[in-house]
């Protein structure tokens, strides 16, 4: 697998990964603001799946129809839709694309659910690797507490209830997240994650993120086309 840069795309993709409650969404939001203030061509990719895929995914989740295999496949379908309809055209058009979660979320989640790792990797090998992947590494307890303190209504699959780890959704969520963290850490070296210590203050993390982005990406290439002509 190659990165978008290695494949000759003019755009660059930056992904953030980490457990729920690791603070990754906050950090990618701050990164986006910083890039926008420099007037760069930036796009933040949310999970805006097409209606069709969303409708099937929702049915599968609400009626608890999904097995590890179909859970994996329906999410791969959703990812492919987002990849082909949004990410690739934007990267062809020379955008800096920020992704809150990318293929590594699926690698961790599906393997914890019992899918063979080689099969899951193979499913996603149509996708190029990010040019930069941040992994927000927080203490498991810190992430868990951020999510669980509010006593949220945990959804069945979100809590990993399908794995029958515990009858208590909160306990199930704890075990599930612990296993996800193990998977992420096992991948960190292989996929060259830029690991950010998410136990630090928000500002300290953002400083590290911005430094890493500035070192890895040549901003002059991402000025809007119009301005480049004027200059």
């Amino acid at each position: 697998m190659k990165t978008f840069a290695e494949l000759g795309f003019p755009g660059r993709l930056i992904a953030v990964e980490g457990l729920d409650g690791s603070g990754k969404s906050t950090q990618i939001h701050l990164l986006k603001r910083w890039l926008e203030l420099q007037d760069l061509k930036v796009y933040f990719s949310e999970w805006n799946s097409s209606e069709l895929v969303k409708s099937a995914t929702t049915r599968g989740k609400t009626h608890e129809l999904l097995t590890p295999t179909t859970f994996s496949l329906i999410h791969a379908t959703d990812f492919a839709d987002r990849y082909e309809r949004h990410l690739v055209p934007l990267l062809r058009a020379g955008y800096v694309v920020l992704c809150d979660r990318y293929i590594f979320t699926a690698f961790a989640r599906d393997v914890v659910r019992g899918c063979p790792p080689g099969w899951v990797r193979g499913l996603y090998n149509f996708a190029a690797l990010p040019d930069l992947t941040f992994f927000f590494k927080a203490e498991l307890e810190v992430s868990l507490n951020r999510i669980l303190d509010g006593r949220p209504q945990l959804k069945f699959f979100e809590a990993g209830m399908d794995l029958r780890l515990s009858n208590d959704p909160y306990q199930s969520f704890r075990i599930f997240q612990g296993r996800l963290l193990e998977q992420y850490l096992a991948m960190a070296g292989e996929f060259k994650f830029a690991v950010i210590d998410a136990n630090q203050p928000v500002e300290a993390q953002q400083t590290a993120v911005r430094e890493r982005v500035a070192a890895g990406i040549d901003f002059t290439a991402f000025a809007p086309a119009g301005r480049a002509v004027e200059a």
Partner: protein
Amino acid sequence: MNRMSGHPLPSNGTHPIVVPPAPRRRFYGHGLPNVEPDKLAGRLIVIEGADGSGRTTQMARLVEWLEARGHATVQVGLSRSTLVSEELECAKNGNILSHTTLSLFYATDFADQIENSILPALRAGFMVLADRYIYTLMARDLVRGMDEVWLKNLYGIALVPDMVFYLNVSPAQLVQRNMAKNHALDYWESGMDLGLSRDMFDSFLQYQALIQKQFMRLQSVYGFIVIDGNHSVAEINRELKRNIEIALAGTK
């Protein structure tokens, strides 16, 4: 009505019921989590072929024949899953999903059916007649330029059937049969999304020839039994039964 114990079952004109021996099972690739292949008794028999190749007619006859012999039989087919069949239908009508997405959507449908229909039926010792299987899905994708290694990994979740038949009918003959039945050609069966020709008739002939070519290539990998679909319904049926009897008798 009570039948006395030991009273022999009527055998006039009917075949004695034979319990098929346990088959040896494997998946094409990584397989499915939490499935023990050895628990899958029954038989999985696949019939492949284009629309108009006579699959439906043959399946109906086989069900009758198998049930007469005391085998519980169930029919499965593509795009019939509870999970995504509705959305797949919409996707086909709107043509809005790109290739990888549609391909994975079909794979999701297939996985849902293998886990929720095919495997439970096999565990219960049923004869499962599959109206198409992964080969049609692969052939369609291969014609559209999808990577073969990627497809093989994707469909590594599929159980290796006990027998696969491919009803091979020439594209020219398929046109005639589709016209006789529907007086029209189907958009997808004509491969209109490929832009081979703006003329649907031309496109159908070209597309079906491409699919046929992929099937013959897949045949060398997966070892289908190719049946000449231009023969009569009765002749084809005899050929199918002859082969299925072998599958029922042996472990493979």
